[in-house]
């Protein structure tokens, strides 16, 4: 019996192969995009964990300063008290134009020593070579290659047991290169300690003990917001794909109603039928899930380089390695495919379970039933909206922001059918011509079958408008901000301090304003903080992008009594102008202002150059901004390149550096644009599949008007008009939703994720382009069903009257 019933059930797909393709493609798309995002996230997180493990930060607790650095004498004092500690000094060094993160360690006691010794042995490096001048670096082969090209003074030992981009050296070499002879970044508490020691809390109250497991999660935590953003996009694409699946499953069961009635009449129990349909769905889910995983893997591999660029640009986080196939990723992808299928099919299966034995095939439009379901969905939508609003009003933070966005998007999607239905009702009342009147009313009748696809389109359009507005607002702000931040006409990097001094003297003799760019790196509450020292100059007073400031801000900074902090640092530590900030235990300055600093993941402060030099006299003096008439730039650049033998790449004009910055910006948002486009593509596909699967069901509605004198060509045109009408209404509704989404991204999500708040700009031309794209997608989606209708054999339409369908 089961085999016979199954064969009857499956015969449906022989007659509707396109429907099967739609179902599987929808599910594969949903699984694919979700899995792609998960693969990227998984790879990035594995990379963070690998890097933390390779740097030895996961094996022992750390002792880090609340602010500033740890003086060498404090380390010595702790060692004298019996604690087994090993020092670490971190920072950034530059060789030629290349920056490298350096980690100076004690090559006798640090947990990494055995691995480094093994690497040195394989390299046949002499014993103690790393401890003696000029000192040796240890680096990943790729980093070692770049380092060797950038400098030749220090030999480099290659080892793939270190992450890319990081140099390990003896702490003496690191402190020399970083010009921090008396300070340490943090101390590692070695595992074997003598019992009965005075607790560290008493010996060093200013230092915080950070458990090893937290150290490993540092980068992961920093980039959580980015991965959450990706997950949200993946989930959105998954939901859009499931809309296709739900629509197709519902339709396939609807079309098999008469078969189900017959099978039941022939004695097949409903329980067996439901089990057979569930088995059918499970097989479809598994096959589509595997296809989706394959597609997701390819998408992830294609997007990973851009994700690496984004993470590096926004967070300074390095994600290395190629995409690898992980078992948990495969299993979770298949679980999502199966879970999503049953979620999408639950309503249809439940309706099947409850279907009376004598239920008739549903070929007539169910007006009242549809109205009631629209109303119920709209009420659920309002509840979602209110829930989201409540969460954002009560709670703060990234998760609350995403809950608000989810409530907003889901709520709007659920309200869509009622809004469109109301719009169509109003439209029908306003029109006087019979064809238009029929078209509006018929469009409304078609709405239940189209509503899921339209919801998908609404979500995709709103996401595009919202994310597009956010990115464009960011770009506009960023471009203006670059003009403020990069006012100098030329930026020069000399190869040594001496050369820097000679160049400064030469330039000043010729009346060219020289703005030294000097900085010192410290740690504040365990995180890196860069202190810039600036000369008092009109350039800063006129251009610097201050968001908030005390009166006479620049006078205070110039006097060395105040500093400026960047926005993300201010938000992270809740700093406001007028408060004070301790850069070191004996160096406390008033915060005179906050400035925007987009694209920088770390904290940054600005004080007077004199004040900085008083604290850190040895900081390099190799970077300069030069102010001169723009027309003199080429001549000056040529001259100083030849006279001072400064490499061409070390002299960059303002146009060049801005172009480079904008290039980084564009690459940062490549992943966003790609996901945007993919989501819109899925929504377009949802419309196409809905129209294709619905068109044959619509013949009972179309045949009477054909008989009344509308030609098949006119009906085909009406199909395209109807699709356009629905897409246009959806696009119009997506606009305000997209703008609310943009606001939430700019004012809530970005602030939490990146630490900066951006002004919102409006881009009507972009909206118009997007709406036209949506309308084009609607025409393309309707073109195939319309073409079929225009060429339909009249005999097919006549079957409607003969009750042969």
């Amino acid at each position, binding site marked *: 019996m089961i085999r016979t019933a199954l064969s009857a059930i499956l015969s449906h797909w022989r007659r509707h192969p396109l429907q099967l393709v739609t179902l599987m493609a929808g599910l594969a798309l949903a699984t694919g995009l979700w899995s792609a995002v998960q693969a990227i996230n998984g790879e990035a997180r594995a990379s963070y964990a690998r890097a933390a493990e390779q740097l030895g930060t996961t094996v022992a607790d750390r002792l880090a300063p609340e602010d500033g650095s740890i003086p060498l004498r404090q380390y010595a004092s702790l060692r004298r008290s019996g604690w087994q500690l090993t020092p670490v000094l971190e920072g950034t060094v530059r060789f030629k134009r290349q920056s490298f993160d350096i980690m100076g360690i004690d090559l006798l006691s640090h947990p990494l020593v055995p691995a480094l010794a093994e690497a040195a042995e394989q390299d046949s490096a002499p014993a103690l070579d790393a401890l003696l001048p000029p000192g040796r670096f240890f680096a990943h082969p790729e980093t070692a290659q770049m380092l060797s090209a950038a400098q030749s003074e220090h030999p480099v030992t290659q080892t793939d047991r270190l992450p890319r981009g990081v140099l390990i050296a003896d702490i003496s070499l690191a402190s020399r290169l970083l010009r921090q002879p008396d300070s340490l970044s943090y101390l590692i508490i070695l595992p074997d300690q003598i019992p009965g020691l005075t607790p560290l809390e008493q010996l060093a109250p200013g230092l915080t003990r950070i458990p090893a497991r937290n150290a490993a999660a540092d980068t992961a935590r920093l980039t959580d917001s980015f991965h959450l953003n990706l997950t949200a996009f993946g989930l959105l694409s998954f939901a859009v794909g499931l809309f296709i699946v739900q629509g197709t499953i519902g339709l396939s069961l609807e079309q098999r109603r008469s078969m189900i009635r017959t099978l039941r009449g022939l004695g097949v129990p409903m329980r067996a039928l439901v089990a057979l349909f569930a088995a059918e769905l499970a097989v479809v889910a598994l096959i589509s899930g595997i296809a989706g995983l394959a597609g997701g893997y390819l998408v992830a591999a294609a997007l990973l380089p851009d994700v690496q660029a984004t993470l590096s640009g926004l967070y300074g986080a390095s994600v290395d390695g190629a995409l690898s196939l992980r078992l948990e990723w495969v299993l979770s992808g298949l679980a999502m495919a199966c879970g999503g299928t049953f979620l999408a099919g639950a309503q249809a299966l439940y309706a099947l379970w409850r279907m009376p034995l004598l239920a008739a095939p549903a070929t007539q439009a169910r007006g009242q039933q549809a109205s009631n379901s629209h109303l119920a969905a709209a009420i659920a939508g309002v509840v979602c909206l209110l829930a989201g609003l409540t969460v954002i009003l009560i709670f703060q933070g990234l998760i609350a922001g995403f809950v608000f966005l989810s409530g907003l998007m889901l709520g709007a999607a659920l309200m869509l059918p009622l809004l469109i239905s109301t719009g169509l009702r109003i439209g029908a009342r306003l029109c006087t011509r019979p064809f238009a009147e029929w078209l509006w009313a018929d469009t409304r009748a078609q709405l239940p079958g189209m509503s899921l696809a339209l919801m998908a389109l609404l979500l995709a359009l709103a996401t595009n408008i919202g994310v597009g507005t956010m990115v464009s607002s960011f770009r506009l702000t960023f471009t203006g901000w670059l003009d403020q931040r990069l006012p100098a006409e030329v930026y020069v990097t000399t190869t040594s301090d001496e050369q820097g001094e000679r160049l400064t003297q030469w330039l000043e003799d010729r009346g060219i304003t020289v703005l030294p760019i000097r900085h010192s790196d410290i740690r504040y509450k365990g995180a890196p903080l860069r202190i810039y020292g600036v000369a008092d100059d009109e350039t800063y007073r006129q251009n610097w992008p201050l968001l908030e400031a005390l009166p006479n801000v620049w006078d205070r900074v110039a006097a060395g009594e105040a500093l400026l902090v960047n926005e993300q640092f201010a938000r992270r530590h809740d700093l406001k102008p007028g408060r004070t900030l301790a850069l070191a235990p004996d160096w406390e300055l008033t915060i005179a202002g906050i400035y925007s600093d987009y694209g920088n993941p770390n904290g940054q402060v600005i004080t007077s150059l004199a004040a900085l030099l008083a604290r850190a006299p040895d900081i390099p003096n190799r970077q300069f901004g030069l102010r001169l008439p723009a027309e003199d730039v080429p001549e000056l650049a040529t001259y100083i390149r030849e006279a001072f033998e400064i490499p061409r790449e070390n002299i960059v004009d303002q146009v060049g550096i801005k172009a480079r910055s904008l290039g980084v910006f564009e690459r940062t948002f490549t992943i966003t644009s790609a996901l945007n486009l993919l989501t819109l593509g899925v929504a377009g596909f949802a419309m196409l599949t809905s129209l294709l699967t619905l068109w044959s069901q619509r013949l009972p509605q179309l045949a*009477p008007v054909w008989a009344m004198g509308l*030609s098949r060509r006119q009906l085909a045109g009406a199909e395209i008009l109807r699709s356009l009408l629905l897409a246009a209404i959806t696009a119009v509704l997506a606009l305000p939703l997209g703008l609310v989404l943009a606001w939430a991204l700019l004012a809530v999500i970005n602030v939490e994720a990146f630490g900066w708040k951006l002004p919102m700009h409006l881009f009507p031309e972009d909206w118009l382009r997007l709406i036209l794209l949506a309308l084009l997608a609607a025409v393309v989606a309707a073109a195939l069903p319309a073409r079929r209708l225009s060429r339909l054999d009249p005999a097919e339409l006549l079957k409607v*009257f003969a009750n042969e369908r």
Partner: protein
Amino acid sequence: MVLKIRNVTKTYPGQTLETAVLRGVSLDLPAGSSLALTGDSGSGKSTLLHLAGALDRFDSGEIEIAGTPLSNLRDRQRAALRRKDVSLVFQQFNLIPSLSIWQNISLHARLGNRWDADWGQALADRLGLTGLLDRYPEQLSGGQQQRVAIGRALALRPKLLLADEPTGNLDETASAAVMDLMLELVRESGAALFLVTHSDAIARMLDQRLHLQLGQTA
């Protein structure tokens, strides 16, 4: 002559062999008259009705509606003819579920630019639909829906009214009442009625009767 059919043949292609449904059928239907077409299932009744309504194409012969030969008409011209001169009433009613009863009644006449609201209202009154005009088809009984279909067909004031088993879905009493009303209204409108039926009783109510057997008039 409102409807003139001469030696019309129609064959449906099959997978292995063709099926000849009509084999040289001829008939004439003057204005104001009515003709009942009877025959067994598969005799070609509905096919002939569809051809007479310019809904389908015939293989040979000729059909003229109000003097217009159909054989050379393009799709668009056939649609225009149906819009202006031909109305249809089907067994399944085939109302538009998304339009109200009043909109259903007026639809065809408005498409053909022949709408007369007074005539439409008079029809609705005569058909007993006055209180139901704001409702939708799914809210009406089968008999009421068939009366709406008749109202829609007659609101056009067509030259030719085609009806395929118009009372096939109704019981005997309702069927007789609907037929009486339809014939009365057809006479008033001056249309020619071409009706397909299985029922001898209904066929007897019309002016002429033609029996179709295996695609030929008997």
